[in-house]
């Protein structure tokens, strides 16, 4: 029997800064799929209260834009990181997992999906053509995983999609 997991997608970034909006754009794509037990949220930055939603999910996928030009996207595992670098009002994915683990005793399987951005230094809503292509490629690879909701498939996918 295939385990059926609940999935939380947290896309973060600033849609007002062109390709920095890739995270929210991916979250919008997932929301539009309307998949059962797959929830997607978009936000400017991760906040401490997001740890609550984390603790209710089996799998969480953080989605952010990247300036790394090597590939259209990467999907890599994320671990809890209780480093004292929490210095501001925003929290890193690893930091959020650490808070969830400390408060609830457990943290979900977590992955960071980074999608290649091409234009960041402008005040504009909407993705560049290159980022839109990379978003589509990431979406094409992730959609079957989201539909299957099988933790093992995510773990297997990482070996092929994590190039960091």
């Amino acid at each position: 029997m295939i385990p059926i997991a609940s999935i939380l997608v947290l896309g973060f970034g600033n849609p007002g800064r062109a390709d920095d909006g890739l995270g929210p754009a991916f979250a919008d794509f997932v929301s539009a799929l309307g998949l059962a037990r797959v929830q997607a949220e978009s936000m400017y930055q991760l906040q401490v209260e997001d740890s609550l939603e984390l603790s209710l999910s089996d799998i969480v996928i953080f989605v952010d834009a990247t300036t790394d030009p090597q590939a259209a996207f990467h999907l890599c595992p994320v671990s809890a990181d209780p480093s004292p670098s929490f210095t501001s009002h925003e929290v890193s994915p690893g930091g959020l997992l650490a808070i969830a683990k400390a408060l609830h005793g457990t943290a979900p399987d977590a992955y960071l999906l980074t999608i290649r951005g091409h234009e960041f230094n402008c005040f504009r809503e909407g993705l560049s053509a290159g980022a839109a292509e990379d978003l589509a490629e990431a979406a094409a690879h992730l959609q079957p995983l989201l539909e299957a909701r099988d933790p093992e498939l995510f773990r297997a996918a990482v070996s092929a999609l994590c190039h960091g």
Partner: protein
Amino acid sequence: MTQTKSKRLVIEPVTRVEGHGKVTIHLDNEGNVAEARLHIVEFRGFERFMQGRPFWELPVAVQRLCGICPVSHHLCASKAVDFFVGAGHVPVTAEKMRRLMHYGQTFQSHALHFFHLSSPDLLFGFDADAKKRNVFGVAAEFPELAKQGILMRKFGQEVIKATAGKKVHGTGAIPGGINKNLTILERDTLLADVPQMKVWARSAVELAKSYTLENVELAKDFGTFPSSHMCLVREDGALDLYDGGLRAIDSEGEIIFDHVDNQDYLDYIVEGVKSWSYMKFPFIKSIGPENGWYRVGPLARINACTYIDTPEAEAARKEFMAVTNGKPNPMSLAYHWARMIETLHAIEKIEELLNDSDLQGTELVDTSGERRLEAVAIIEAPRGTLFHHYRINEDDQVEMANLIVSTTSNNEPMNRAVRAVAEKYIGGAKEVTEGMLNHVEVAIRAYDPCLSCATHAMGQMPLVVELFDAAGGLVDRRAKGLALEALA
């Protein structure tokens, strides 16, 4: 110990505040503090960005100053823009929806600051191991407290979402009013959580009060100095975070000015500049630049208001004022207690508003009045008094924008707190430790400064201390958590 070289210490950036800042501390030949300054190292530029833009963009655009407390800018700009569309007074439903949004913002912002930015210092001590003295340490050792902080912040964010449409960068307030009322479902969903929020807010007041009273000897000599205080008050002198006239009091509690019309602020406040900082140094015009500086924010508001119009917060205010026999409290560390009294006030006001059927009214916008081409709006943001001043042309384009954010008003007090704490904890020390530097940061953090709003910034804030000799040469350098390394 007699030191042979004067030194300059740099704390950069300051941690657990929003934005980039640094502190420089100059030591003289004897190792005593000769000068200590808080620098804001970036430039905002929003006033320039807005020139030429249509005025109706303002309530949404200015929120981009910050992803943390955008509601204050959203509402302040909306209040100013109301004048441009002939809505000096918005419909009652619109005003109450905006107030609800604002109290939700205050509630979540104060909870975040107290529980997750400042509580590590208060719970573990200013000198505690930096690896533990952070939000993860609080979550590990005080999980219930950490959960309370998270759930209080989440509740405040839900209030904002119900009134502004989104938790961050909402669009609820529009020129002349509001774009929605509160549905019964939204009201009942929020009301269900109010009793628990009140319990936690009460306990947060007790925690902050106990900390202050148990450490009153520390607090009396930790960035404590007399000052003027300024805030908005209602016509009857009550604390009012959304609207009112400006009041300033001196260090003895005597009124300097009162019920000043928002449009006349330039007759009372001047923005001074100093060559070493991007931030301005506002001062009270009638007193002058030397002594006219003032505090804003929770401490100033609790000190300056005549009373609070919600019963539990008013009882807490009376306890707070009793500590200084009714005179203004001069302790920087008392900001935390004052902030929690406001948190209790905010949830009381939220409950009051949620039970008000005006929130289900259907008259949402009124633009029937006379249009103006210049307007000033003032609001009490979580961190203090916020000014938005705009002038537009006949084509509805912004010609001039001027913002005075609360952190700018607190610029001089924070600098004084930095100097006082540096003198006490670093002056004459043989070795500068991370704990000593954190004392300086604790003083800044008490003001909950938003350096992003004061200028413009985001990002990581590692701590670096650099020692310079009298000739300006770099002698030693310390990165936070690392040993001093000799560079000579």
